[in-house]
């Protein structure tokens, strides 16, 4: 017995280190797995509060660019609105057709990262504003990410620029769909995989979200094709996508709540249980 106690005392540094190292490894693995209850995130009142103060100061430095962005968006929405009465068929499929199913909450980005391999944003809305995990986040120019943890007043968003992110996307012209991923590197480029080789793709083609997941409505802008090549097995294209969003300068975003999500999820889960 005494020897055991001596062993603990002699190696207390090593044991303490091992314990703490294991805890941090657990937290790391926990953060790498997609959509799990995250343990330590910046969506808490302490770090959220400090980021809010920081952002209050920083907001003044890019007022001009943000105003321009808002005017551009207003302009686009006005065009959409005024053309709506005349030619219903020419309107690209977009969220305004599906309005009853989706509600939007506007939020302010208080922290943003884009230089790591697993990037995330922190926004100043939380469960008090009816946010929940798995809601989509878009900006005036396109897709930003997916909510992955929420507290009362803050939420963290898994950015498009995260190697865990997989977003359903399709070619706007042909409706062929694939998966949008990010393979580290430039914050302006993402990759669209799983587009079959018989599809004709061209540089400059627009990529939009595909309505098949419950997260994003159909037709939200993502980016345009910058370059394409066949994947290693030569059956599918690997498209390099230039994102419309400048992910390095995100300030105002909209969180999308899909009112039908719970019902669809329930149906799909029931089906999986049967199988």
């Amino acid at each position: 017995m005494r020897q055991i106690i001596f062993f603990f005392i002699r190696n207390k540094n090593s044991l303490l280190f091992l314990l703490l190292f294991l805890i941090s490894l657990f937290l790391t693995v926990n953060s790498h797995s997609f959509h799990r209850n995250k343990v330590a995130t910046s969506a808490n009142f302490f770090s959220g509060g400090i980021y809010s103060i920081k952002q209050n100061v920083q907001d003044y430095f890019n007022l001009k660019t943000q105003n321009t962005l808002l005017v551009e968006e207003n302009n686009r929405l006005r065009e959409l609105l005024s053309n709506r009465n005349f030619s219903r068929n020419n309107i690209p499929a977009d969220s305004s057709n599906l309005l009853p199913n989706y509600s939007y909450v506007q939020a302010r980005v208080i922290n943003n990262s884009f230089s790591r391999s697993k990037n995330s944003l922190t926004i100043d809305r939380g469960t008090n504003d009816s946010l929940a995990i798995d809601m989509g986040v878009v900006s005036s120019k396109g897709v930003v990410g997916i909510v992955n943890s929420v507290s009362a007043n803050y939420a963290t968003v898994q950015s498009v620029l995260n190697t865990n992110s997989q977003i359903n996307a399709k070619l706007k012209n042909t409706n062929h769909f694939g998966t949008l991923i990010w393979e580290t590197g430039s914050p302006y480029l993402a990759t669209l995989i799983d587009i079959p080789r018989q599809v004709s793709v061209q540089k400059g083609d627009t990529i939009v979200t595909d309505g098949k997941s419950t997260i994003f409505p159909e037709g939200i802008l993502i980016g345009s094709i910058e370059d394409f090549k066949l994947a290693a097995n030569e059956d599918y294209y690997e498209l390099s996508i230039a994102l419309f969003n400048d992910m390095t300068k995100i300030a105002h975003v909209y969180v999308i709540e899909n009112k039908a999500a719970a019902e669809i999820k329930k149906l799909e889960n029931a089906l999986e249980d049967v199988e």
Partner: protein
Amino acid sequence: MWNNEILINTIRFLVLLLVQVILLNHINLFGYVNPYVYILFIIVFPFSANKSLLILLAFLLGLGIDIFGDSGGVHAAASAFIAYVRPAFLKISFGVSYEYNMVKISKSVIGERLTYISLMVFTHHLILFSLEIFNFNHILLILRSTLFSGIFSVVLIFCTILLFSRRN
């Protein structure tokens, strides 16, 4: 004297944490290079102080950075590791004189000081980026990030020590 040291280290802990998460995490030199200066706390922690305490504080500091940066536990792991191996690095850099608690970082020879800081920084960064990227297909990215961020951090930490060391 003892109380004074506790106060200085507490302030250093908080200031480095806030400076790191508010300022240094957003530098993004050349698009992706950020310095991690907060490990200065572990580097200059009194050499004669309790080692268990240092490991625990390093872990908490890293965890704080992780919570602010949404990075899981990568900073906590890397910080706890360099706090654990610090005695070995001290011995390599400063030789036997470290054993007699004779060394003060602000008064050491430049070469020895640089060896010590580089060993700490590059070990920390290698663990940090390996855990963060977590994919051996991206091993070049890990090494490149370690090298560039490491050089940036070493320079900044070296300058900070120069700036804050009292001259006699």
